[in-house]
């Protein structure tokens, strides 16, 4: 599979802060990628630089093999509507869609109209007077209907209610299935977009903590629930990401897959395997990276605590 987005040793420094530090990243074409991280982690800066809305202090960016800054060969293939996007003053949604139709070669006006109906975007309300959710819907519609080869969504759910969020996920997947393209969604509602994304990029404090296919990431850890001694025995020397004790019963999330003999031992010792949620796993892995002294806990000590 070819590469859609590539950053090589990209840093972005402001006077008082470093937003990105030595970031190298390669995202495959025609896949949905989740860019996950806490507020201020550097997600928006990364997307701004990838789309040439901002520029790196050092390092190199390539989109579809080309440098995007001031490059009209590749820019029409990119769409990035910001979380708090500004529109032409006094614009209605139809004005924004009409401008997008002029800008994006693969714009689908019919799809935009259908999405506007489904998201209940008001026709006669100026965008600046719309609710946060309605404004987000306008951005989401532009992102989907643009059918840009590389589309970025920056926390697109802001202000959207549960129904509208689900609608976004459904319509994005539908359109992606019929018109495959590279999509990057930044979010901190990890579990909500977990079913959407094929690849996870976790960013924290301007650095990439991990980049992995979702399935591979899920296989990296298991959560065991059972008696403390039994869980400790099965965990062995594996790295414990999280541990909770409720009397004699413990719930331990640890790195590493289980082999067949260990799975048999689970049954014998009445220890249950609980699926690790992507959000839990990423939170734990992020916390681990944050910790200055990474230590592999001795499970027996952990259980005894």
């Amino acid at each position: 599979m070819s590469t859609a987005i590539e950053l090589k040793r990209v840093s972005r420094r402001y006077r008082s802060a470093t937003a990105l530090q030595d970031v190298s990243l390669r995202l495959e074409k025609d896949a949905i990628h989740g860019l996950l991280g806490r507020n201020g982690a550097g997600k928006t800066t990364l997307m701004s630089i990838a789309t040439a809305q901002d520029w790196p202090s050092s390092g190199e960016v390539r989109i579809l093999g080309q440098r995007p800054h001031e490059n009209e060969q590749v820019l029409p293939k990119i769409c990035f509507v910001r979380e708090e996007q500004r529109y032409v003053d006094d614009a209605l949604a139809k004005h924004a869609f009409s401008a997008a139709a002029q800008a994006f070669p693969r714009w689908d006006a019919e799809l935009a109209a259908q999405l506007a109906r489904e998201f209940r975007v008001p026709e006669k309300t100026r965008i600046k007077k719309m609710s946060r959710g309605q404004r987000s819907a306008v951005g989401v519609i532009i992102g989907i209907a643009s059918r840009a080869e590389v589309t970025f969504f920056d926390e697109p759910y802001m202000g959207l209610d549960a129904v509208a969020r689900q609608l976004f996920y459904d319509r994005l997947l539908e359109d992606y299935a019929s018109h495959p393209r590279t999509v990057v969604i930044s979010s901190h509602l990890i579990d909500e977009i977990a079913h959407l994304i094929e690849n996870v990029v976790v960013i924290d404090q301007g650095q990439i903590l991990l980049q992995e296919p979702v399935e591979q990431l899920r296989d990296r850890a298991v959560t065991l629930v059972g008696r403390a001694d039994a869980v400790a025995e099965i965990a062995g020397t594996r790295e414990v990401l999280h541990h909770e004790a409720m009397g004699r019963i413990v719930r331990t999330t640890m790195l590493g897959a289980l082999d067949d003999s260990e799975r048999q031992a689970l049954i014998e010792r009445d220890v249950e395997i609980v699926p690790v949620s992507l959000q839990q796993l990423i939170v734990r892995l992020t916390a681990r990276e944050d910790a200055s002294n990474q230590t592999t806990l001795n499970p027996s000590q952990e259980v005894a605590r």
Partner: protein
Amino acid sequence: MSNVAVESMAAPAAQEQAATRSSLSRIPAAFKLQFTVPSQMIWVPLVVFFGAWGIAIGIGAWIRHVAGDGDIINTGASQATIWCLAFIAAYSASHTFPFSMALSYSRRVFVLGAFLAFATVSAGFGALFSIAILVERATDGFWAESYAFDLPFVTQNAGVLGAGILAGAVCLAAMMFGFFWSILYRRVSLVVLWVIVLALVALMAVTVMVLTQNDWWPHVWDWLAVQSSYSFAGWVLLLTLALTALNYLVIRRAVPTA
């Protein structure tokens, strides 16, 4: 840490060669972007043009009614549209520019589209200015000898056409000037912006002082006296082109969120 090892930039030759579109092909779209909301560039300036003119006519008629026959009344109402368009151009930098980034226009294409749109609107203003002069002449200043457009210092050297061209040129310069300050505000901090303002004021003060100290003002007046509306419009357009280039240099590193 960065656990993603990137050995080399993936730049397949096929991808490099795939794009064949002209780098200027989206300028018409960037031009139309400025007219996305018709009220901004068309209806509001028209309302201001005829509104200010109407007010000036009313004031002129009132003065003539109160004071009776006397000196010709010249007003500055024709400037109102120029100021209005300068502010609208500033809006374009503050609001339309961030949206143009979401639409993935390059800054170069956005500035060229904006320049062409401003030039079109300015040409329209120049044409209306000339028509307004003809109307004022035909009606003797609306039967009150009150003039907002047929001003001697604008028309005396080049007539109606020259006045319209000069008005259009001044309008375009004002729009690029409004655009410049707005985009500069986006690019630099408030402190730096005011330092630049003060530096320009200081530069102007020094220029005035040098002219005064060397007794060069008569030369300046002589130079101005030989200028026609056409030549003056030419100088203004030169200034405007320089401003447009400056605008691109400033916007080239402007960020839409700032």
